[in-house]
Every structure is written in structure tokens, then in C-alpha cells.
């Protein structure tokens, strides 16, 4: 018996030969290589994405300006010599700039050509002159050389987005305009300067006057509402479910539902906001208040789940020790468990907020996808948010909005990186290993 089974037993013995060992090492090497390849592939795609955005978008941060010597005619600005900023604010500064351009290119005649010539300046250029006059009224009556914004087409031309060698009919900037611009360039009267408007203005239909500040402020108010609503509600729900609630069918049901809500597509929350907040409560359309409430519904499950995980990570021994020295359950939670879980809760909250910052779909239904020029001054003023601004610009026909779109994406990415870095920092700094 034993003789007949011995050979099979010998066959089953682990093969410790060099060859097999080599194969195992090779398999491990291959596995590591696959892992590295996966990471490189992900990095390459990310690099490509960010690279195209930066390449297409960095020019949004500069704007072509043209130096125009403009005679600040007191007859036009303040004919009655009132010194009243109201009257000076209403004067036709664009007209002064046009006069100056006409003097610079005296041989341009004919209505159409003149209009073309005036068109090299932004039609908001007068506002630059107005600001200069209002900040220092003593310059009225003198000739000042002021840098004013060029129109979007000229801006594209100077930035090299328009090929000057193409046949005239194929470009938006015509031959005579190029002649004027080249003459101005030879004078050193054309310069690309830092685009402050992009960071201080609201939306505009003119690419050179459009800015993201309105959207940034809108995002701020919206997230403020979201934070004010979700943080207390989320933390209280998590504490109750984790520390006080009995384990029964009902709490199981609630838990399943919370996990389910976390996976609901965000547009559903927008529809809910439209039906409940706008139709039943009668809250204003396009307001950050409603946007914040909708996003709060969306982020609540994320925060509850993160907070519960953080609470669960606090070892039971701490609770038991506190109870052992006579603390009440409330004291155990507020004095010991919650402070220890707070870094984890904060991290979850910040990640939830970052998610809410990038959301567009639910805001579509409640009217936040809108053209809004004025910077919102409160949570009930009409406002839009950064991702919506990107969406709107991406849809605009004017070519110069391409760089603005990419510029706005860079700003949004900047905010997201900042928030996620803060979350990582909090975790690194305050998290405790048990």
C-alpha cells in the first residue's frame, strides 16, 4: 500500500527548483511593470488634459491693450464745469477715443472703413478712460496716453490665433485692419498686459470684457449655504446613527437609503429643487440660496458616510474608559469621540464641498445656467457658478471665448486642488493612529 502511493506523494512535493523560483520572480516583476504602466497611462492622460487646457488657456490671463493718446475734452466730459462725478460718468468717452483714432489714421474715410477702424478698440474701452478720469478729474483738458482694451478679434490677431497669411476672405480680421495694427505695433502702441478684467468682472458677451468674478462669488455663496446646511445635519445624523441609534430594521433601512442617495444622479436633485424649493416654497430662481440647498441634498450622503466612518474609527476603549469614569453618553460623544473624529469628518466635508463646487447639472433646473452680468451681492441675488460659466462660454460662438473657457477651467481646477490639498493636510496633521 505505502509503496504504491509513495511516487504520487513525491510528485506533489513542492518544486523548489531554480527554474520555478525564477518564474515567480519574473511574474512579480511583470506585475509591478503592469502597475507602473497603469500609473504612467493615467498620468499621461491627465498630463495631456491639463496640457491642452493650459496651452489653450494661458493667454486668457493677458489682454491686448492699445495706447491711445486721447484729448480729454472738457466740452465733452463736463461742459458745465460741475465737477459732478455723475455727469462726468455719463460722458461719451468712446467718442473721445474715436476722435483720437481718426487723428492717428487721417486717410481712413468712408463710413464702413471708419466703423472698422473704431472696431479695433473694445466697445468697453471708454470705460477704461472713464475710470481714469473719475479717479483723477484734474487730467480733464489735457492729452493723456491711455492703454485701453482692444476688441476680441484684434486680441486674437496679436496673440497669434489668426494667421495673417491666409486669404483675406478667410479671416475675421481684414487687410486694412492688419495694416493699422502693424502701424500701431511699429509705434510700440500695442502691448499684451495682465488681464485684470478676467478676475474682476462678471460675464459679458464681449470676450475681452468677460470675467469670472461673478461666477466665483456665486460659487462662494452657493457653497456657503451648502456648508451651513450639510455640516450640522450631516454630523448630527452620523453621531446619532453611530452612537445612539439601536440596531434594528429601521436603522438598517435608513442606512441603505443613505448609501443609495449617494449614488443618485445629481440632476435628480435639481428636479427636486425645482419642484419643492421653487414651486412649493416659492424661493427665487437662479439664487445661490436654492443652489446651495440643492447641492446640500446632494452632498449630505457623502458627509454622513464620511462622518460615520470617522466615528467608527475611534476605538471603543475610549468610549468605555469615559463611561467607566462616570461620563454620560452625551459627554462621551462631545468630550471624546467627536473631537477625535473631527479631522476625518472635516476631510469628508471638504471633499463633499469640492464635489459640489464642480457640479452643473442640478443647477440647470433651478435657473442658475443664465447670463448674469452683475456680481451677486447676497444669497438671493441671481448668480451663476464657475462650472456653469465654463459651460456657457464653451457654447458661445465668438472664437475668443475658447481661451476664456480654458482659463476659467484652470481657475476651477486651482480651487479644486486647493480644497483637496487642504483635506490631505488636515488628515496628515491631525489624524491619529490607534
Amino acid at each position, binding site marked *: 500500500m505505502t509503496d504504491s502511493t509513495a511516487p504520487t506523494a513525491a510528485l506533489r512535493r513542492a518544486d523548489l527548483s531554480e527554474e520555478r523560483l525564477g518564474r515567480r520572480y519574473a511574474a512579480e516583476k511583470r506585475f509591478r511593470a503592469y502597475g507602473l504602466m497603469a500609473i504612467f497611462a493615467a498620468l499621461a492622460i491627465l498630463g495631456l488634459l491639463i496640457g491642452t487646457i493650459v496651452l489653450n488657456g494661458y493667454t486668457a490671463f493677458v489682454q491686448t491693450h492699445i495706447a491711445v493718446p486721447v484729448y480729454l475734452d472738457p466740452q465733452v466730459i463736463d461742459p458745465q464745469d460741475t465737477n459732478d462725478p455723475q455727469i462726468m460718468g455719463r460722458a461719451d468717452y468712446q467718442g473721445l477715443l474715436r476722435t483720437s483714432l481718426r487723428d492717428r489714421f487721417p486717410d481712413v474715410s468712408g463710413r464702413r472703413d471708419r466703423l472698422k477702424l473704431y472696431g479695433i478698440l473694445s466697445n468697453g474701452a471708454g470705460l477704461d478712460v472713464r475710470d481714469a478720469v473719475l479717479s483723477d478729474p484734474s487730467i480733464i483738458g489735457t492729452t493723456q496716453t491711455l492703454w485701453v482694451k482692444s476688441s476680441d478679434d484684434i486680441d486674437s490677431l496679436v496673440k497669434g490665433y489668426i494667421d495673417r497669411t491666409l486669404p483675406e476672405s478667410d479671416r*475675421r480680421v481684414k487687410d486694412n485692419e492688419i495694416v493699422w495694427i502693424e502701424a500701431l505695433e511699429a509705434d510700440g502702441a500695442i502691448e499684451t498686459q495682465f488681464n485684470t478684467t478676467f478676475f474682476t468682472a462678471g460675464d459679458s*458677451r464681449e470676450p475681452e470684457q468677460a470675467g469670472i468674478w461673478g461666477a466665483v462669488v456665486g460659487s462662494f455663496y452657493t457653497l456657503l449655504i451648502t456648508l451651513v446646511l450639510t455640516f450640522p445635519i450631516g454630523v448630527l445624523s452620523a453621531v446619532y446613527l453611530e452612537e445612539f441609534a439601536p440596531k434594528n430594521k429601521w436603522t438598517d433601512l435608513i442606512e441603505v437609503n443613505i448609501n443609495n442617495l449617494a449614488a443618485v444622479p445629481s440632476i435628480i436633485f435639481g428636479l427636486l429643487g425645482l419642484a419643492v424649493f421653487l414651486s412649493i416654497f416659492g424661493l427665487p430662481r*437662479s439664487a445661490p440660496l436654492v443652489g446651495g440647498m440643492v447641492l446640500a441634498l446632494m452632498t449630505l450622503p457623502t458627509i454622513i458616510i464620511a462622518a460615520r466612518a470617522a466615528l467608527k474609527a475611534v476605538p471603543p476603549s475610549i468610549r468605555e474608559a469615559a463611561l467607566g469614569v462616570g461620563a454620560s453618553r452625551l459627554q462621551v460623544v462631545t468630550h471624546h469621540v467627536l473631537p477625535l473624529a473631527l479631522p476625518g469628518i472635516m476631510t469628508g466635508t471638504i471633499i463633499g464641498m469640492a464635489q459640489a463646487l464642480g457640479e452643473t447639472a442640478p443647477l440647470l433646473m433651478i435657473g442658475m*445656467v443664465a447670463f448674469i452680468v452683475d456680481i451677486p451681492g447676497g444669497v438671493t441675488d441671481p448668480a451663476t457658478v464657475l462650472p456653469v460659466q465654463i459651460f456657457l462660454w464653451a457654447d*458661445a*460662438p465668438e*472664437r475668443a471665448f475658447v481661451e476664456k473657457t480654458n482659463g476659467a477651467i484652470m481657475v476651477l481646477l486651482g480651487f479644486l486642488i486647493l480644497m483637496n490639498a487642504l483635506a490631505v493636510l488636515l488628515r496628515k496633521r491631525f489624524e491619529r493612529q490607534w
Partner: protein
Amino acid sequence: MSKRTLAVAAVAGFVMVAPALAEARDQIRIVGSSTVFPFSTAVAENFGRTSGFKTPVVESTGSGGGMKLFCAGVGTEHPDITNASRRIKQSEFEMCGENGITITEVKIGFDGIVLANSKAHSPFALTKKQIFLALAKEIPVDGKLVANPNKLWSDIDLSLPAERIEVLGPPPTSGTRDAFVELVMEAAAEEFPEIKALDKNAFKAAAHSVREDGAFVEAGENDNLIVQKLEANPNALGIFGFSFLDQNADKLQGATVGGVAPEFENIASGEYGISRSLYFYVKQEHVGTIPGIKEFVAEFTSDKAWGDEGYLMEKGLIPLPTGDRKSMMESANGMAPLSM
């Protein structure tokens, strides 16, 4: 703990007080068509800058969605103006009437729909009939309607290139698609006696169905996306609004339709066959309640906005003929009620 109770109380109080904030509104609210959106926003911005009123808020909801919001009722929670890339429908007009709304209609100009391809390819010269034969789901062959057998452009007409038919266009939810189907497909279907002989519903089905075998690709609502895809794929034709062709004249060329090129002058004169009228509708009950509506209408219908050299023309709007513009301006500023 008391701090937290306070926070919860504050939030609850806030949510309850908020509806009271909704009552007052001193800003015009505009909804409606995404085609009219670029023009409406340009006027809104200029109006806000020059009039001293707050800049109106313009939402892009689509023509149908805008009408629904607009006709929902009178009161500050409802919009004051809606934009439309088609005329108001009888049913919408009735809904507005039921809710006590009197409407003023303003026709602002035209929008051309173009078929264009990349400059890397030779330009197309098409007729509406050829477009129908390329894109309809079913076409008449030997007196019978059969599934569209045309694979190459040259299958339709030997003057066209021997290349695969590939057209990128908007989805059915888009107003541009509605207009394209009505102006091209329906008009061409009339020319086939086999289709014309059908009863009303069958005719509609035959004229409105676009093929789904890959020759027509729904490329989304974003016209910029179609422009980019055309650049990448010189063999494809795209269907989109004139202003996008105007902005991308260095990369794209428009196909002639019936021998007429999609150029500004041809669309304005009505010679180019695929153009539609654009409108906005004003709620008269809100004039006087919401400040600035009359002034906004006056700005929109002023020559510096919608005139031959106005700023809307720069944005790609094709103006009404001078005479129509004058009469439209009078009826708009007089707030003439619309009747259907």
C-alpha cells in the same frame, strides 16, 4: 452643544424667512431659445450698461421650455420675456391666455442654417432635394418608399463626390433641428409626388424621419463641438447656425443650397432658402411692475442694436428689412397685444 443648536435654529429660521425675500424683484428676467440667447444677452448687457436699470438675467432654456415658464402665470416669480426661434404655437398662446397673460410679439430678425464642411475638402453644391435623398430615413424608389439605399454622395447625383455620406447635426430636442426639418426636409418631400400623395400623418412621418444608419450623426446641442468635429474630419458635413460659420470662416466653408451661398446678404434678402425668423415675447402685465421692460424693448428695437450696422449684426443676427423693422418697432413699443 448649545452652539450647534443655535446653528440648526438659524438654518431653520433662514429657510422659513427666505420666501419673503422672493417677493420684490427689480430686474427683468428673460428665458427661452438658445439661438436667440447670444442676441438677447448682448442687448441685456448694453441695456444694463447704458440705461441705469439692473442688467436683465437671461436663461437659455430652449424655445419650448421658455414658453412653458413664460405662460405659467402673472407675478414676480414668473419671467417677463421669453425668446423663441419659432413663432408661438396656438396651444401655447391659449395656455398664456388662460393664465391671464397678454403677449406682445416682437420679430427681431433671421437666422440662417448652414451646411458646411472643412476647407481641406472641396465645397459642396447641394439642392434641398439632394439633402433629402441623403438624409431621409425612407425615400421613394420606383414609386415606393424604401429604406434609404444611398451610401455615397454620388449615388444621389453624379455631380457629387464619390464619398460616404456623413452629416453631423443637432439632436431632435434642438430648435435648429426643428427648423432644418421643416425648411429642408419638408420642403423637399413636397417635391416627390409619392410622398405628397400620402395623408397628413404619413407625410409628416416620411418628411420628418432622419436616417439612423450612421449617415446622419447627432452631434449634440453645442455647435462649437460640430465645428471642431468638422475640422478633424474633412469628409463630414455639419448642420448649424450661421453665426458659427461666420466666426469660423478660416476653417469652414458653407455649401450652396440651390445655387445660393450661405452669405449674410443672401440670407437677409431671403434668397438663401434655409432661414427662420427669431422672436421674443413680452408679458404686458409685467410692464410697470418690473422696472425697465419698456426701455429694454426700446433698446432691442433701436437701430443701434438691430439695425443694419447695429451691434446685433456683429453677433450674427440677420436684420429684418428696413420697412419691417420700422413697423415692428412701432408695434413693439406700443405694446400691441398679440392675437391668433
